[in-house]
C-alpha cells in the first residue's frame, strides 16, 4: 500500500481509531501486527509468506542461540539464519542477474545453451526487513541483545507498517523496548496502556507527514519528468544538460526517499513509537564521509556495525585494511540497491570517494588541519566539491544502460560548454525547474534555521491550520490523479 494513496489515509485512520478504542496493550499490538500484515498483503499478495517465514526463522533461531552455551552450535545457528535470510534475498533479488552474467560469459566462450531467466517478482521491502531480522539474530549472537519475549512482539518489529517497505532499517534494541514501555499515571500511580495519543505527538507527527507528502508528491513527482526526459537516452546530450539532470535527480531522489521516511517516522510517532532519523541535510555535507553520516543513515550504520567494523576489527590501524574494508562495504551498499552493474559502479565510486577521503585525512594532516577548511569560504567550497562528486555518482544510481552511463559520466566530468540544448530543456520543463529552485531554497533555510518541522509543529493552531491547508493544496493542485511508486520500493 502506497503512503500517497487514499487507501493509506483510510487505513491509517482506521488503525488509529482501533488502537484508541482498545485499551489493552497486547490487543493494541495485535491490531498493529494485523494492520501491518494487511498493509503488506495489500501490495504483495502471497509474498507475505516470505515475511512470515523470515520472522519465524529468526525468532526461534535467536531464542535457541541465546539459550545455547556451545560456541560452535551458536555459530552454526547463526549461519543457518544468515543462509536463510540472505538466501531468500539473493534468490529473489539477484538470481536473474547472476543467470544473465553467466549467459553473457557462456556466449563469450561460445556455449550453445542459455539458462532461462526466472523473471521473479521482487518482494516489496525484502532488502529492508531482511537486514532488520539479520541484525536481530546477530545482536543476540553477540550477546548485546536479549531475544524478544513473544513472537507477536518480534513479528511487529519486523512488519511494523510505517517502515516496512523502505525503512529506516530498525534495530531490535531500538524498537522492542518501546513495546514494553508503559506510561505512569501521575494521579493513580498505575500504568496506562502503552499506546496513547498525545497532543504533542499527534501535532508533530502530522506536521512531519505533511512535510513528507510535500517532498514526495509536490517536489519529487513533479521533478521526475525532467529527469526522465534527460536520462531516457542521454547520448548526444550536452554537459550542462547532464549536470542539470544529475542535479534534478539529486533533488528528486532526496524528496522521494526522505519524503517516505518523514511519512514513516510521522506515522510511527503518532502511534507513540520513535524511529531514528534517516537523513540529516546530506546535501550540506562537507566530505563524502560526512555525506554517508547524513544520507540513508540506518543503512550506513548497519553496514558499519555488521560488516565494516568486523572486517577491520583485527587491524584498525592498517590503512590498506581500512581502504579495502571501505571498498567492500560500499560495494555491498551499491549491490544492495539493485541487481545491475550501475549499482555496483555506484558503490565502487562511493567507496573510492570515502576511502580516498579517509586516507587523506589520516595521512595528510596538512589538508585535514588546514585553516582554509575552517573558514566560511572553505566550508562552501567543501560542500560544492562534495556535492559535485556525489551527484556524479548519482548518475550511476539513475542510469542503468552502461553506454548511456559512461557517456553521461564523461560529459559530466569533461565539460563541453555548449548551452543550446540545456536552454531548450529548461524552457520545456519550467515547472520542474521552478520546483527544483524552490526545493533548494527551502533546504537551505532548513539548514540555516534548524529543524523546520519542529518550528511548524509548534505554531499556534491558527497558523498551523494555514500550514496544513497550504500543504494539502499545493499537493493536490499538482497531483496528476495517480500515485507514483517510491524509488526505494525497487530495492
Amino acid at each position, binding site marked *: 500500500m502506497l503512503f500517497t494513496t*487514499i487507501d493509506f489515509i483510510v487505513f491509517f485512520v482506521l488503525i488509529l481509531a482501533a488502537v484508541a478504542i482498545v485499551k489493552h496493550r497486547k490487543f493494541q499490538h495485535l491490531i498493529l501486527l494485523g494492520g501491518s500484515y494487511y498493509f503488506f498483503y495489500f501490495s504483495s499478495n502471497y509474498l507475505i509468506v516470505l515475511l512470515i517465514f523470515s520472522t519465524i526463522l529468526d525468532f526461534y533461531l535467536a531464542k535457541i542461540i541465546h539459550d545455547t552455551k556451545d560456541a560452535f552450535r551458536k555459530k552454526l545457528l547463526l549461519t543457518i539464519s544468515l543462509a536463510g535470510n540472505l538466501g531468500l534475498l539473493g534468490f529473489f533479488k539477484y538470481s536473474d542477474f547472476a543467470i544473465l552474467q553467466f549467459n553473457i560469459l557462456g556466449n563469450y566462450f561460445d556455449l550453445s545453451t542459455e539458462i532461462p531467466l526466472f523473471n521473479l517478482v521482487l518482494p516489496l521491502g525484502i532488502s529492508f526487513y531482511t537486514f532488520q531480522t539479520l541484525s536481530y539474530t546477530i545482536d543476540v549472537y553477540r550477546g548485546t541483545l536479549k531475544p524478544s519475549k513473544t513472537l507477536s512482539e518480534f513479528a511487529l518489529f519486523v512488519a511494523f507498517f510505517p517502515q516496512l517497505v523502505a525503512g529506516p532499517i530498525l534495530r531490535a534494541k531500538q524498537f522492542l523496548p518501546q513495546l514494553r514501555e508503559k506510561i505512569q499515571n501521575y*494521579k493513580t500511580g498505575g500504568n496506562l496502556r502503552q499506546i496513547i495519543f498525545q497532543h504533542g505527538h499527534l501535532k508533530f507527527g502530522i506536521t512531519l507527514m505533511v512535510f513528507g507528502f510535500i517532498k514526495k508528491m509536490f517536489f519529487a513527482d513533479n521533478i521526475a519528468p525532467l529527469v*526522465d526526459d534527460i536520462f531516457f537516452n542521454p547520448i548526444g546530450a550536452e554537459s550542462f544538460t547532464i549536470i542539470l539532470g544529475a542535479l534534478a535527480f539529486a533533488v528528486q531522489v532526496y524528496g522521494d526517499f526522505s519524503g517516505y521516511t518523514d511519512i514513516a517516522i510521522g506515522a510511527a510517532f503518532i502511534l507513540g513509537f520513535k524511529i531514528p532519523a534517516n537523513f540529516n541535510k546530506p546535501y550540506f555535507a562537507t566530505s563524502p564521509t560526512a555525506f554517508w553520516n547524513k544520507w540513508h543513515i540506518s543503512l550506513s550504520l548497519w553496514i558499519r556495525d555488521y560488516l565494516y567494523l568486523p572486517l577491520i576489527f583485527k587491524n584498525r590501524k592498517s590503512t590498506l585494511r581500512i581502504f579495502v574494508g571501505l571498498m567492500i562495504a560500499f560495494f555491498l551498499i551499491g549491490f544492495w540497491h539493485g541487481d545491475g552493474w550501475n549499482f555496483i559502479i555506484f558503490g565502487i565510486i562511493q567507496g573510492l570517494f570515502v576511502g580516498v577521503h579517509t586516507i587523506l585525512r589520516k595521512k595528510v594532516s596538512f589538508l585535514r588541519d588546514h585553516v582554509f577548511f575552517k573558514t566560511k569560504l572553505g566550508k562552501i567550497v567543501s560542500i560544492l566539491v562534495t556535492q559535485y562528486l556525489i551527484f556524479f555518482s548519482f548518475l550511476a544510481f539513475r542510469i542503468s544502460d552502461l553506454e548511456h552511463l559512461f557517456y553521461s559520466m564523461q560529459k559530466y566530468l569533461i565539460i563541453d560548454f555548449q548551452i543550446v540544448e540545456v536552454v531548450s530543456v529548461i524552457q520545456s520543463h519550467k*515547472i520542474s525547474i521552478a520546483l527544483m529552485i524552490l526545493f533548494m531554497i527551502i533546504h537551505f533555510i532548513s539548514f540555516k534555521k534548524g529543524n523546520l518541522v519542529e518550528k511548524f509543529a509548534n505554531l499556534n493552531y491558527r497558523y498551523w491550520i494555514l500550514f496544513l*491547508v497550504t500543504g*494539502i*493544496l499545493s499537493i493536490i*493542485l499538482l497531483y496528476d*490523479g495517480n500515485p*507514483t511508486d517510491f524509488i526505494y520500493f525497487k530495492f
Partner: protein
Amino acid sequence: MIKSVNSVRKTTFAIFIAFVFSVSIFLFIMSIAPDYKYLEHKEFFSQDLTGEKIFIFGSSQIYALNPVDISSHLLKQGHDYTVYNLGQGSSDTEEQLRTVDFVISQEPKIVVYGIAYQTFYSHGRTIVETPPESLAVPPKLSDLLSIISLPYNTGLLDNPKFATINTFNHFYQKQTGNFQEELEHPYPNTPFFVRTPNAEIPAEQKDLEKDGKLANYKGNEIYPMNKNRTYSALKELIHILNAHNIEVIIFTTPHLKNWLEQLPTQQKEIFNSMLDDLEKEFNFEVFRLHDKYNVMDIWIDNDHHIAHSEKTDFYSEEVAKMILTRIDE
C-alpha cells in the same frame, strides 16, 4: 491528563478544519478552471454531424492525414463516409477517455486510432499495485469525488495537475499575446489541428543526423503493459466503443529510421508486446506503419513527416485502405 486529551481533540479538530478548507478551496478552483480542451470537444461534438461518420484520433503524428482525401478514396470504392481527423497535439488516450461519451453520442461507424511510441510514454506515471481480490479495498479518491458535480463536469478531478497547468498556460498565453482566438486548420474536418507552415518542408539530413545518430534525440520511457497508464486507457477506450457497436481500427504511425534504430531494444519489445496484446484481446489486426516509410525524404523530425504535400499523399491512402479492409471484413 485531561488537558492532554482536550489538546488531542483540539489537534484532531484542527486537522479536520484544515482538510475541509483545503478540499473546499480545491473544489472552488477546479470549478472555475475552464477545461479548454474538453470545452473544444464539447463544442465540436454538439454539432449536428449528419451522415455516416469515421473519426480518426491521435496526436500530432496524424497531422498529415487529410480526411477529405480519405473520404474520396472510400467513395471511389462505393462507401460514402465523412471522415474527421480529430487528432490533437500532445493528446493522449487518458485524455481521450474523458470525452469518449461525446464520441459515442455521434454514433460514428468506425473510430481509428493512430498510435505511436509517444502514445505510451509514461513520464513517470504508472499504475500502482492492484490489491488482491480477497481484500476489502477502500474506494478510489476519484470515486469519492465523483459524487460532487462541478459546473463543468469534465473529469478534472481525475487529474488536477492537468487542469492547473492548462489554466496557467492559457492565462500565460493571453498575457504574452500568444493566444489566437481564430485558428486556421490544415484541412477541412480537422477541428483540433492548427495549420503550421513548417510542416510543409522536410528537414535537411544534417538536421536529422549527427555523427550517424539522430540529432536532438528526445524520448521517454515506456513502462510495461501492466504499469502503463495510457495503454490501459487505450484498452478501456476500445472496450467502451465496442460495447456501443463502434468498430475500432488501430494503426501505428510512421517513424524515422534513425530514431527507430536508437530506440532501446527493451522499449521496442514493450511496444510490440502491446500491439500483440491488442490483437489477441480484441481479435483484430493492428496495422503497423511505424517502420514502413522510415527512409523516405519526407521527415521533419523523428516522428513527424511533411503534410500538405503530394509526397505524403500515400499516408491518407494507406489509412483509407485500412478502413476498407475492415469494412470488407
